[in-house]
């Protein structure tokens, strides 16, 4: 039997990213496949030029950051809006093959 909430409020889950609990096993596998996965410096060029980003909130910068912080669900949700046009790979100042990276993320983090 669950206790009835007699106080009228509840505890919200913490929004803190607890780095102690982040499991990077999958991200490390991604890094083996894509050595450039840690190379992003979050300049946002990819997002600014992304034709899907203006409407869907898709942002490769955010996807990579979310994966590095263990927020895999958020990342995968965002990636669904990617059309694989490859425009981001044209503007990346670090020369990351972003299109290839996205495909590898999709393979590794695929949802059932």
């Amino acid at each position, binding site marked *: 039997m669950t206790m009835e909430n007699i106080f009228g409020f509840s505890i919200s889950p913490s929004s803190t990213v607890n780095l102690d609990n982040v499991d990077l096993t999958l991200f490390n596998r991604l890094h083996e496949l894509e050595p450039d996965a840690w190379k992003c*410096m*979050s*300049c*946002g*060029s*990819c*997002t*600014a*030029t*992304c034709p899907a*980003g*203006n409407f869907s909130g898709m*942002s490769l*910068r*955010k996807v990579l950051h979310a994966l590095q912080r263990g927020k895999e669900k958020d990342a995968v949700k965002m990636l669904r809006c990617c059309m694989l046009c490859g425009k981001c790979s*044209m*503007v*990346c*100042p*670090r*020369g990351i093959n972003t299109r290839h990276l996205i495909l590898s993320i999709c393979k590794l983090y695929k949802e059932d």
Partner: protein
Amino acid sequence: MKDNIVIVGGGIAGMEAARQLLKLGYNPIIVEKSDRLGGHVAQWHCLFPDMTPAKDVVSSLIEATGRANIFLNTEISFMNRLKDSYNIMLTNGVSVIAKVVLVTTGFSVFDAGKKEEYGYGVYDQVMTNSDLEHWFNDGNDDRIDGSEMNAIGFVHCVGSRDEKARNPQCSKVCCITAVKQAIEIKKRFPDAMVYCFYMDLRMFGKKYEDFYIAAQRDYGVRFIRGRVSEVSENIEGKVIVKAEDTLAGKPVKVTLDLLVLMAGMVCNPDCSTLAGMVSLQTDSDGFFKSRDNIADITSSSRDGIYYAGACTGPKTVPETLAEARSAALEIHSYINRL
């Protein structure tokens, strides 16, 4: 007889070294490929962070090097090693034997036209940091004089920290130069909105942070953390800039009357020519490679060849001057050892 010292490049590093070498009793010979002394600094308006007029710095150096031999419009045609000196042939037909060659060939400004997505040379209202300094100096540029200035943008890191442009290195001085130019432009157009688009702000030097705070608080320059990905032009000839405001996590778009590209410092193409003559090493960024990047920055891997200033990497004016003095002292002790 006074020892000859050949200085390749008549910018501020070459002149400062010549000044010190004259004081130490040597005969410096400055070889400058252009028709004037002072290099890039001579074309600048004023210098951060105290707004020192660049022409004051250059003219006092020119005055102090008056007794040196100066060859303008001259380059090195070849150079070879003798027993303990170098035989140097200049393009004007003069040949010199010198125990020491000081390389002060400096840097080149990145050709902003190579970043096509920024529209330099394509859209009317796009200029570079050097173009803006020219305007500060002579007040003559159609891009500024011909239109109303309501909104102006600065793009940091153009051609630097950019592997696509084959320049992964940070050009070091553009962050603070953008802050300086944004303040100067705000003084000329107090009612204009001034935006700086940056990836990281590297305010490493003395008083730089104060300068940055002043730009934000006293001049109202707006800093947006996001690299500009592309620029387009609207029907009125204004430029539209697209970036991601990475702090908000949203794409951002703004219409500007003028866009200034902070073109970075890249290696001087003369570097490789000179390096080929006496097999000097260049680094992965194309600049000359010092014997040691910490303890021996002014020495090359070859005896009798020294470096000063931006020929080994992007440097500020005070760093360049300090290195030139340090190289002069190294040269002095090298000659005394021979």
